[in-house]
């Protein structure tokens, strides 16, 4: 039986582990991956203490820092959390028991949900530029989305691919102006605005996309080798939906002490209803959640 089971190993989960271990609580981290969304980011310039660092490097530093305090670490995919008397059972490919749970599962990539998308994942359709860019050397790719991730992905790919289409459903970008300007200056990036991808076609691998202009209604086929879908993220909370209260966006509702409505279950980082999804705010919430878990365990011990 652990004092704390932390689900997720991004900045929120790893910082929670540091704070909990330093309070001498026994900790198990259950995660699919280390670093979370941070590891997929390009250059990061707004994390205190690092003027400029790549996401992968920062994630590595987080991991090393957390491991210094020796939490148990298990790669597992958590399917469910159950209440068992005065503690919780966390069910993955194995079962784990803990007095408290800190949910720090972040967000997962939103899908377009169009024909061909599912079929060609790993065969030209990708949600992770840093993972799959090497396959598109001198190829033609499309990036779908209008946020910072999409625009910086297009920039990153422009250095590897022969040609990059940046497809966005509106004519204005949500991305920072400075990034859009940078992309506009890159010769092999072509902007396709007011347009959506309605189908991905191929044979074994992606061959083309059907793109519809939402203003004129015109549909045209564009030959591409790859499609990077960067249309945002959704809270990774579905495995908990019967256990804690979620808001209309599927985010776990927490108070300022990172407590959910279920005593003993805490949440931190991008999976919560926190307004800003930033690395530094996620790490801060991880610390708060760990201290709240510590208080919860102590109060309970005092009562008994």
């Amino acid at each position, binding site marked *: 039986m652990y004092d704390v089971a932390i689900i997720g190993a991004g900045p929120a989960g790893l910082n929670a582990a540091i704070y909990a271990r330093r309070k001498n609580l026994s900790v198990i981290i259950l995660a699919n991956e280390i670093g979370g969304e941070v590891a997929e980011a390009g250059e990061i310039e707004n994390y205190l203490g690092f003027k400029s660092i790549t996401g992968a490097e920062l994630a590595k530093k987080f991991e090393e820092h957390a491991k210094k305090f020796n939490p148990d670490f298990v790669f597992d995919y958590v399917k469910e959390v159950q209440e068992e008397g005065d503690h919780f059972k966390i069910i993955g490919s194995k079962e784990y028991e803990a007095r408290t749970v800190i949910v720090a599962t972040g967000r997962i990539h939103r899908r377009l949900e169009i024909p061909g998308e599912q079929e060609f994942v790993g065969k030209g359709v990708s949600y992770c530029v840093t993972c*799959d860019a090497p396959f598109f050397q001198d190829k033609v790719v499309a990036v779908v989305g209008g946020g910072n991730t999409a625009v910086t992905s297009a920039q990153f790919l422009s250095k590897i691919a022969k040609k990059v289409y940046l497809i966005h459903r509106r004519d204005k970008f949500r991305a920072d102006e400075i990034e859009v300007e940078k992309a506009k200056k890159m010769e092999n990036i072509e902007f396709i605005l007011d347009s959506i991808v309605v189908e991905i076609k191929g044979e074994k691998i992606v061959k083309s996309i059907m793109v519809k202009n939402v203003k004129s209604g015109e549909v045209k086929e564009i030959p591409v080798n790859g499609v990077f879908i960067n249309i945002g993220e959704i809270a990774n909370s579905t495995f908990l939906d019967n256990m804690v209260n979620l808001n209309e966006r599927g985010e776990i509702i927490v108070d300022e002490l990172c407590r959910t409505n279920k005593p003993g279950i805490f949440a931190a980082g991008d999976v919560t209803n926190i307004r800003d999804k930033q690395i530094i705010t996620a790490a801060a919430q991880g610390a708060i959640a760990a201290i709240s878990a510590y208080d919860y365990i102590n109060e309970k011990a005092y009562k008994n």
Partner: protein
Amino acid sequence: MDEEEIKRLLAQRAMKKLDIARRAREIVIEVITSPGCPYCPRAVEMAKRLTEKYGVVSRELSTSTPEGMEKAARHHIMGTPTVLINDEVVFIGVPEFDKFEEEIRRRLHV
């Protein structure tokens, strides 16, 4: 059960174990990874766990090596991690461990 019969059963069991060990050495897991892939270490770790448990062969092939790129091109792989067993693409993306193990057990006939 007499002594002879016990000996025969024990010998049979030993033979079966040897048989599985022999088959395990013929099973090769390859995990295609890339340096920028945060999900890949988990798939590699699973393959290592299966190696320890069953004695199958496993190795990581990175897209940063010519060997990795050549393998990916031959199988039309355009995503990481991708898991191959005996040169056949079995999982695209990080597999669930239970399913990964089942693929190995099926090939071992256990």
